[in-house]
């Protein structure tokens, strides 16, 4: 096998036999997988800079990437605390939504009656626009932070709940029979069968909920209008707009995008780590 691989590497053989023995992902392909996206992003940035430069667009209308980078470094003392606030709200909301979603899903599937009673409430909470709830929450909560947290939680909670309910219900009936046969308790059935079987669904909920909790944290801050030391990136973004400090607005926007990308990356990684050995979604097709 190693000999054949070497041959393939040396003259890129067209021999079908050699082709089969080659590792599926060649080094070239691995490099290209990283190089191509990076090149595309760099090209877009270069194009942006070029448009701004050659058209003499003033930076209060459209700053170039260089201006944004400069703003990012000079305004860092303002942006970093704001980023921290947004991250705290996003991740606290996500964690509470994960715990709440999983626990409520487990309770819901215990009995059809509980599900019938509780599920409509969660749907109503989900479909009501978060921007409309935010002002109300401001009245009832002691401070803005908690109102923002609740908003982000409400948005992230539902996809996690509904995915978990679907996952807990989608257990192979024969496996349930098997557990009955060996006299498994409800608790054993939950721990050894239902929760592991729901893993792929949980991971879908995590990925959706992670992205949504950031969006909700930003939208809620727009609606709630926080200010001062405890304000997040959304407030800094609005503030920069009022002051026509467009480079800083872009810098805040950039941080939000990067946060979103990071959340997506982390949740995807968690999902892959959990499912890679057994679930079809995380395994490469072998033909």
């Amino acid at each position, binding site marked *: 096998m190693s000999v054949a691989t070497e041959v393939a590497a040396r003259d890129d053989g067209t021999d079908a036999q050699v082709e089969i023995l080659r590792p599926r992902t060649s080094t070239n392909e691995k490099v290209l997988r990283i190089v191509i996206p990076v090149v595309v992003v760099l090209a877009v940035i270069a194009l942006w800079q070029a448009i701004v430069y050659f058209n003499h667009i003033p930076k209060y209308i459209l700053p170039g990437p260089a201006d944004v980078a400069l703003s990012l470094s000079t305004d860092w003392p303002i942006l970093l605390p704001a980023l921290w606030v947004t991250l705290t709200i996003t991740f606290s909301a996500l964690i509470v939504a994960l715990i709440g979603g999983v626990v409520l899903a487990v309770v819901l599937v215990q009995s059809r009656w509980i599900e019938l009673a509780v599920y409509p409430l969660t749907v109503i909470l989900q479909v009501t626009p978060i921007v409309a709830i935010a002002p109300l929450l401001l009245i009832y909560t002691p401070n803005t932070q908690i109102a923002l947290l609740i908003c982000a939680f409400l948005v992230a909670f539902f996809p996690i709940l509904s995915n978990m309910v679907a996952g807990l219900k989608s257990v192979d009936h*024969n496996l349930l029979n098997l557990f009955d046969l060996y*006299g498994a308790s409800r608790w054993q059935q939950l721990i050894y069968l239902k929760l592991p079987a729901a893993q792929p669904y949980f991971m879908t909920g995590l990925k959706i909920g992670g992205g949504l909790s950031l969006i909700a944290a930003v939208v809620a801050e727009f609606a709630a209008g926080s200010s001062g030391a405890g304000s997040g990136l959304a407030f800094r973004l609005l503030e920069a707009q009022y002051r026509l400090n467009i480079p800083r607005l872009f810098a805040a926007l950039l941080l939000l995008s990067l946060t979103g990308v990071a959340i997506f990356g982390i949740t995807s990684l968690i999902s892959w780590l959990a499912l890679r050995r057994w679930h079809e979604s995380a395994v490469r097709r072998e033909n």
Partner: protein
Amino acid sequence: MNHVTKVFSNGTLALSDMSLTVGEGEFISLLGPSGCGKSTALRIIAGLGEPSSGTIDWPSSKIDARGLPEGDIGFVFQEPTLMPWQTVFGNVYLPLRLQGVSKSAARPRVMAALTEVGLADFETAFPRELSGGMKMRVSIARALVTSPKLLLMDEPFAALDEITRQKLNDDVLRLWKTTGVTVIFVTHSVFESVYLSNRIVVMRARPGQVFTDMPIHTSSERDELYRASEEYRAACFEVSRALQDAIHVGGGAH
């Protein structure tokens, strides 16, 4: 395992007044047309469904709250029914785990069961990495790991190719001889039932009932030679005819 009597009928009349006594160490095949309630009967024996009327009597005195002899039944489903997130070891360990046996205490028993089915080298593999036949072997190992007195098999090899099926038939025969377990084997294959069992219960459909109960005697070992013997052919012919009669009676009643 004496006097397993079952008298039973339900709304759709899947089984009607069916009685069957299984002796210890027997290898019984339940054979019949589809819809004759053979799987239903097996599930009721396993306690996976309540009979509408009638009872299942066990000789054993140590019967648990569900009216079943504890840990004494192994069940092999039509599909391998493995947990895809568990390794082969984890899947075979399951029945012991549910009984509260620790992993270290269970290890020798799990490995012994895996060795029995020839999969000792695959303990860390995941089900999706195995072929259909190997998955079925894992399923059999799981059923054997509790050292059951009674092994129930519900058309376990129906979805497998003929070559794999023959191999697994031989394995099941070998396991039956070495462990002395009582086997009730549901199948719709005449050849499989004659090859494996020392007693064939032919069932009729609508309502599901025992049609005939015929012993299969062999003078030789059950192996490739037996498969080619006149004795085997004669038994197959006889069982086939009984099955035809059962289908005819069922169809006439419909």
